């Protein structure tokens, strides 16, 4: 599969001396939805800003559909749409004018029909002549999305699109992202919401302290996370596992006082019932039991904490 974006050894050190990115390598596949997770100040926005031309890289390269973002910036920028994190809007302008302006700015001939369908898609059509300052925060966010889509980009960056957005609009946004993906647009979004990444992303990347600490297919990640553990506290510590229980994925911890059973939640049967029956049959008394599932959030937190 061709790469929509190829980030190579990208480093950014600001004048203040802060290094926001440490030689990041990242390939973004054509047509995928990539979710970038990371705490505040991890470097997500810096990465996006460099690709879009707002920030200059200190070293390293970025190729957008094979074009260099510095030597061939006109080509790369016309392929990209950006919805920044902050609500930057021309308060005194009308919705229609500001979206039309964006299209022209990106070198496209006026196309009122396209702008109309965009505004209708984003439920902004009845507000097309309204001044932007009269709109609610969620509406302004949609205006920014309309601006970013006005020049029919092949790649869309959404920097925290659902921060401070109500549940309904978030669902709308997810649907919109789904439709865009259907039309072949590559989408990169940053988010704080793990749930959001789970819901819509094809791949998930985690950035922390300017480094890409993980990038994986979401399904693969979910499969790994699909493992669940049953912890059984025993009345009497065991020296070894009884023979009859060898078919289970069991391990003894705590000097034999605790038995841990790992199982796959995706499997048809968890095997918990039969394990308990077998334990009973072997005369092993269970004092207490608990189950635990590691979530994307746990992995995320452990990655981020581990780097601290």
């Amino acid at each position, binding site marked *: 599969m061709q790469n929509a974006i190829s980030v190579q050894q990208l480093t950014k050190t600001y004048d203040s001396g802060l290094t926001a990115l440490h030689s990041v390598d990242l390939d973004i596949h054509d047509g995928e939805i990539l979710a970038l997770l990371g705490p505040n100040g991890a470097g997500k926005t810096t990465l996006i800003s460099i690709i879009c031309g707002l*920030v200059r890289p200190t070293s390293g390269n970025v190729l957008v559909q094979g074009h260099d973002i510095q030597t061939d910036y006109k080509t790369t920028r016309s392929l990209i749409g950006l919805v920044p994190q*902050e609500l*930057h809007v021309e308060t005194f302008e009308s919705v229609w004018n500001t979206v*039309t302006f964006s299209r*022209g*700015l990106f070198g496209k001939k006026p196309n009122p029909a396209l702008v109309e369908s965009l505004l209708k898609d984003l439920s902004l059509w009845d507000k097309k002549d309204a001044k932007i300052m009269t709109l609610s925060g969620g509406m302004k966010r949609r205006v920014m999305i309309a601006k970013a889509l006005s020049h029919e980009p092949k790649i869309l960056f959404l920097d925290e699109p659902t921060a401070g957005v109500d549940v309904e609009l978030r669902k709308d946004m997810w649907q919109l992202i789904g439709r865009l993906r259907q039309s072949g647009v590559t989408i990169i979004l940053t988010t704080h919401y793990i749930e959001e990444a789970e819901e819509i992303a094809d791949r998930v990347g985690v950035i922390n302290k300017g480094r890409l600490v993980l990038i994986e297919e979401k399904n693969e990640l979910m499969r790994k996370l699909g493992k669940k553990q049953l912890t059984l506290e025993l009345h009497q510590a065991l020296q070894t596992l009884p023979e009859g229980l060898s078919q289970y994925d069991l391990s003894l911890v705590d000097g034999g006082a605790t038995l841990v059973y790992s199982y796959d939640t995706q499997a048809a049967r968890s095997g918990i019932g039969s394990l308990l029956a077998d334990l009973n049959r072997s005369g092993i008394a269970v004092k207490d039991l608990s189950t635990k599932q590691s979530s994307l959030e746990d992995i995320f937190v452990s990655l981020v904490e581990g780097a601290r």
Partner: protein
Amino acid sequence: MNLQAIKAIYVYEMSRMRRTLLQSIVSPVLSTSLYFVVFGTAIGARIETVEGIHYGSFIVPGLIMLTLLQNSISNASFGIYFPKFVGTIYEVLSAPVNFLEIVIGYAGAAATKSIILGLIILATAHLFVPLHIEHPVLMVFFLVLTAVTFSLFGFIIGIWADNFEKLQLIPMLIVTPLVFLGGSFYSIEMLPETWQTVTLFNPVLYLVSGFRWSFFGQSDVSVHVSLIMIGVFLLACMSIVWWMFKTGYKLRT
């Protein structure tokens, strides 16, 4: 050349003028009329003619230059400062446009506005005093050249300024005094000799003088020197703007 982008910026900027018609047109016309009343009537009663020209008519080119300079600078500096202030500049910086296209769009719109304004003031002046323009084509040429040059200058100020005070600083502190001392309301021959020499270092003198020549066919300094001086200033402004985009000065980190 991204012509669509130039057009988009230009049209967008011009639409801001339509929205703020009152501030953009009415107030400069009103203040110019006040100048006419104060200078033309009060002072004109004491000075009948300057270099054989009726004083009321004599100050018309200077008054137009004053408005042209102030408005070119304020239009252009505000035009680029405002997107920086509200953050919408991100869009221009992420767009497939080069510095030339951005400058043509923003400074072009600012220059257009001040040229329109200059012509309105000329028409207003016509109501107060008799006017005859000796070299109309050159008059328009001076008007355009000055408007473009000072729109570029305003653009530079707009990029440089990081607060509203700085935006006002240079126009208030430097440009207005230079205009008043640049022979807008008098001929430098009316000054003592030392001050005549000092005035020769004021770039506005060359603008006003050249512009006045296009009206009356006579001026303080030669029209060629005037043209060269405006050309030098235009080139200087263009170089600074080019450098600003090249280095990303206050635009890209």
